[in-house]
Structures are given as structure tokens and as C-alpha cells.
């Protein structure tokens, strides 16, 4: 483990109903990396992601963030530094879009309401939506619009770590390209560490500084996109990059 490591997972195991979901998983992620995660549906990607912000706890194994075991950390403080864009969409149904996006800043009790407002306006544009929807409620948005609000909400925390679970799954290709560009820009500008689950291998290879390929609860390959492309670890990866 180098000094640069921001997230480390050691010997993680997780079982549901006697079925092993995650089997002895080990993972090291460095500060400022952009990790894309790809793998078959139901292989355990979301499970691993949720472990990082403590929404899910492994049956066995340890997780360290910035070298501290998260068991011993103030999980609330930790989570506020971790942006989380949830698979599917779980916007807060009783809040307007504006309230949804400013949820974390309001949690931290930023006194400067104007600033929060300004940053919300900025974020809504970052995800390609119009300011006019800020006063609407989630159910009044289309699926893709909701998903993008979820991304904006995750970004609003100005987090050190950004967990994104299939964030662009419900948007069209054109918007997707814009969003990809935005996320790359954000990654560079803010030097945030990103873990990004996607089913689009092109997206994974394009965005990731390293790509994590999972299958059946295990890491099949974890390497730079070029390496993945050139030297797929096994048939599963080979079929993926085809």
C-alpha cells in the first residue's frame, strides 16, 4: 500500500442467503484515479461500491479510506466527502429538483445560501438540463432527466471521492458524450477520485485511467485500458472488448 492509496479493500467477502456474492476481493485505488468498473449484471459491482461508503458492510475483510479503517471512522463525515450517484434513481420525491441537488450542501449547513444557489445553477447546466426544471418535483421529469439530477446531486458535495453507479445509463448518446466530457473535466479540475460503474465498454475504456473488470464476485482484470484491450485476461474480458 503506497502513500498515495485512497481506497483499499482487503479480503472482502459477502454472502446473501448462503450464496457467495463477493469472494475474497482485494483492491487498491490511488488518489486521483478514474476507475471504471465493468462486469456482468448481478456480479456484485453495486455491492462493492456501497461498501466503500458503508451502506453495505462486508461479512469479512477490511476497508481503508485514506489509510483509516472505515469501521473506526465517523461514517457520516466520511460519506459527506464521498459523492454517490445511485443506480436507477432515488431522488427524494418530496423535494424539488433544487432541494434535491442542494441536499448535501444544506446538510453541511453552508450558510451562504446564494453560493449554494449559484452552484446548483451551475451543476444543472453541467448535466445538460435547464434551470427551469429546478422547481419541479422528480416525478415530473423523464427518466434520463432524473438520472442527471442524481449526478448533479452527487457532484454538489464537492467530494474527494465520487462513486457513480451506471450514471449515464438512461441518457441518449449525444447527452452522454457531453456528460462524459464534463466528468472528465471535473476529474481533472478537482482531482477527485472516481469509481464509475458502466455497462458500456467503450465508455469504460474511454474514461478510465484503469478499468476494473468483474465477474461472479471476483476481479478478473484491473489494469489500464490499453492493457485491457491488448491483453485481455481471459475469454470473458476478450468477449467484452470485442
Amino acid at each position: 500500500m503506497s502513500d498515495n492509496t485512497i481506497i483499499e479493500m482487503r479480503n472482502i467477502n459477502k454472502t446473501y442467503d448462503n450464496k457467495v456474492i463477493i469472494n475474497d476481493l482485494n483492491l487498491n485505488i490511488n488518489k486521483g484515479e478514474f476507475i471504471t468498473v465493468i462486469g456482468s449484471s448481478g456480479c456484485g459491482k453495486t455491492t462493492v461500491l456501497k461498501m466503500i461508503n458503508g451502506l453495505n458492510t462486508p461479512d469479512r475483510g477490511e476497508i481503508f479510506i485514506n489509510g483509516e479503517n472505515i469501521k473506526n471512522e465517523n461514517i457520516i463525515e466520511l460519506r459527506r466527502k464521498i459523492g454517490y450517484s445511485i443506480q436507477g434513481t432515488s431522488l427524494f420525491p418530496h423535494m424539488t429538483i433544487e432541494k434535491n441537488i442542494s441536499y448535501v450542501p444544506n446538510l453541511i449547513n453552508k450558510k451562504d445560501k446564494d453560493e449554494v444557489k449559484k452552484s446548483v445553477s451551475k451543476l444543472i447546466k453541467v448535466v445538460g438540463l435547464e434551470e427551469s426544471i429546478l422547481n419541479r418535483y422528480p416525478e415530473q421529469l423523464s427518466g434520463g432527466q432524473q438520472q442527471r439530477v442524481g449526478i448533479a446531486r452527487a457532484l454538489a458535495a464537492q467530494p474527494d471521492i465520487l462513486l457513480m453507479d451506471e450514471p449515464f445509463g438512461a441518457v441518449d448518446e449525444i447527452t452522454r458524450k457531453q456528460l462524459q466530457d464534463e466528468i472528465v473535466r471535473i476529474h481533472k479540475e478537482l482531482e477527485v477520485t472516481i469509481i464509475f460503474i458502466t455497462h458500456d465498454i467503450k465508455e469504460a475504456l474511454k474514461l478510465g485511467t484503469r478499468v476494473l473488470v468483474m465477474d461472479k464476485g471476483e476481479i478478473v482484470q484491473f489494469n489500464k485500458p490499453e492493457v485491457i484491450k491488448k491483453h485481455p485476461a481471459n475469454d470473458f474480458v476478450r468477449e467484452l472488448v470485442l
Partner: protein
Amino acid sequence: MISQILNIYIDRRDFFIDLTIQHLEISMTAIIIAAVLGLILGVIISEYEKSSSFVLGVVNFIYTIPSISLLGILIPFSGIGNSTAIIALTIYGLLPIVRSTYTGIKNINPIIIEAAEGMGSTRFQILYKIKLPLAVPVIMSGLRNMVVMTIALAGIASFIGAGGLGVAIYRGITTNNEAMTMAGSILIAVVALIFDTILGIIEKSLDKKGNKKYKVKRKIIYTISSILILAIMITSVLNIKSEKNTIKIATKPMTEQYIIGEMMSSLIENKTDLNVELTQGFGGGTSNIQPAMEKEEFDIYPEYTGTAWNNVLKKKGIYNESMFLQLQDAYNKDYKFKWIGMYGFNNTYGLAIRKEIADKYNIKTYSDLAKYSNNLVFGAEYDFYEREDGFNDLSKAYGLKFKKNVELDIGLKYKAIKNKDIDVMNIFTTDGQLNTSNIVVLKDDKNFYPSYMCGNVVRKEIIENHPEIKEVLLELNNKIDNKEMSKLNYEVEVEGKEPKVVANEFLTERGLLK
């Protein structure tokens, strides 16, 4: 029927307005407290799941206590009147609100809560930013039930002198005045429906989809309800304020106390600038008035020395008037109460005999009676034979041995002696019926019975703040002997006059009032 009810409303408008305001005060206060408390409890048990079955069990349990019992349990702690009524209503109100809060929170989609957790919300933030707003519909449903229930139940306030529309209902029931009962019930229903409607509008305006139309309505409703709540609070405060110059007098549920109470009240209001709030016939007598005096809910009440000695000071032994100084000292020390103004009558137990027989054998005292008792029939109510200091001890003390001992209903004793069914009977020395009956009260020459001289117990503070009261109370000092009291009682009990009338006639007659 409808026209009867309408007439009642018109004729007794002020009565109903007062009752309605009282009803509102009591039920609104209880509703607000129960809502807050219930919400807190509901939140606690939803957060600390383990406590839920215990708390819900307790809330269920207290809900099942019959209202009469609950009031009985509460009176020793919170006295009578509004506070007890409010506490009881609050306790009953908890069940719906606690459970609906709990259910509302537990029923929220866990995915949404997980999202909030993942965002680093503290437990409290999740609670008030996510859980409570999303639980609103279910909580409101419980709240609305609770409001209707509390307003309906607030009728019980009338049992303990806290007023409210229950007064009309139960007065109607006891006097068989159906229109009165209906008039009270209808007002309760109307109040309940109004509040439910207001809550319904508030609920709609809390709805997230709240569009502009509702936002306006919401403002109106908030304003109205704030004004209402404020108004109620101000009235309560004013009530308290207006009490500053009000002397609160209580009396026990006995005819003579009603009369004395009216006398005091008339005198004070006539001779000072003070107002009097007279609570006549306070349920439970000494055992409820004494604690209320200690709580400063009452300022003055007429008490009997013997009762004070045994029941208030809890001393053993038989009281006689040579111990009056001791009694006063103890009151001064233990309670900061003074005895001011002894009326002059002694309402103690006694024996009365048919005049005929008294004259025949020249019987004047209990000892005289003992000599002839084996020729005479004695009558008393069941209790008297059973009581420890009753018949047996008395018989022993004087060596009484009657030809026959008859058990009689207390209401029929005087009838029986007049019918010559009995010759001797136990009495109270100020009984109104003594006045006309052809009977003689005997002298307790061995002082078997304690002395029960009547006088006013007054809170010292009142005398300090209003020294003029002392003078007024002393005006009645030694003005009423047993005969006089018995006569006044007779006027009320047998002639059916109002205690107030009797009191004022007496005062005027004696030149104490013009």
C-alpha cells in the same frame, strides 16, 4: 326537537359560548401536547425499534384505563380543573399519534432512506429532512383521528369541574333534558368537524404537489390557525391575569357550606374591590380541597376543626376546642394557612331523642339517656353500626343498651322518628331537619365526639396581600350557632330556597349587608 335545540342556543347563548371556549381551550391544549409528545414517542420507537413494543404496550395500557378511574388517579397529583382534564386527554390522545408516527416512518421506501444515508446525513437529518416529511400523510391521518377523538372525549372535563361542552351534555342527561344534551353534542361535533376540515386543508397544502392555489389557501389557514391558537393562549393568560385580584373560595359538597360560601362571597364582593371565584361543592371535600389549597388553586375554604386535626394534620386522638391554639400553630407551620373567622356552630355527631320522651324522663345528656335506654328504640344508618368509633364505642362509653337497634336509610331517619318508629337516633348537629322536628339534641357530656367548629382556612399570602379580607371574614365571627345553621340548612333543604338567597337574607337581616 330541532326548534327546541335552536331555542336553547338562543336562550342560553352565553352559556354555550363559554362552554365552547372552555372546550376549545382544554381540547386544543391537550391536542397540541399529545401531538408533540406522541410525535416524539413515535419517532423514538421508530428509531430504537427495540423500545417499540414496550412503549406501544404502555400507551395501549393507559388508553384502556376508564376515564373516571384515570381522573381519580390524576386528581391527587394535578388537582382539579383544566390541568387534570388536559393531562387525561393528552394521555388518551397518545395512542393514535404514536402509532401513526411509527407506522408512517416505518412505511417509507428504504431505498430513499438509503440514499439519504449514503449522502452523509446524520440520523437526525434523515429524520427531519426525509422520514418525517414522507411520513406526513400517515401521521396526519393519526393526528386527525386524535383531534376528533380528543374533542369528543373532552366532555369528561366536566366531571372534574373543568367545564367544556360536557357540562351541557351531562346536565342534559341528569335532568332528562334531551334538547340540552343534543345541543351540547352537536356543538362538539361541529367543533370536531371544523378542526378536521382545517387539518384537511393544512394536509393538502403540505402535500408536495402543492400548487399555487393551495399555497394561498395554506397561508390563510396558517394565519387563521395561528390566530386561533394565539387567541386561546391569550385568553388563558388573561384568565390567569384576571385572577390576580380574584379570591378563590372553595366549599365542600354540604348544604351549610354552600350557604357559608355565598355569604363570604357576597361580603367580600360588597366590602372590597376584590372579585370572588366561588367553587361550590368541590368533589371529595377536604381530601381534594386541601391539596388544591397547597397548590394555591384555592385561597379560602370553610373547614371544621376536628376534621382539620384528624384528617389534615393527621393527629390521633379526639380533638376538643382547648386544642385550637395547637391546631393553629400546626397550620401556620405546616401549610402557611391561617384560621380566620369561626362561625360559631359545631357540626359534630350527636344523638337526638323525641321531645316527648325527653320531657317524660327529663333526658338532657347522653348519661341521662343511658339510664332509660333499655326502654327505647335506636335508629341509625348501616354505617354507624359498622364504624369503629360508631355505635359500639359510644355504647361502651356511656353504657347505652337500647331495647332495639334499627338499621335505617339515612334519608328516612327523620321520617322514622316522627312516625315514632324509633325514639333515639344519631344526627349531625346542624341538620336542617332538626329545626322543625319535634326532637331534642342531647349533650355529649363526656365529650365522646370531637368538636367540629366551623371556621375559614385562609392562605397567609392572601391576607398579606389583601388585609381587608381578614376584616370581612371576622364579621361573621360567632354569628351563627347550631340552631341558626340548622335553620338556614332547613330553608335550603326543605323549603327549597337557593343557598345564595338564604345567605343574603341572613346577611341583610343581621345588618351585614344593605
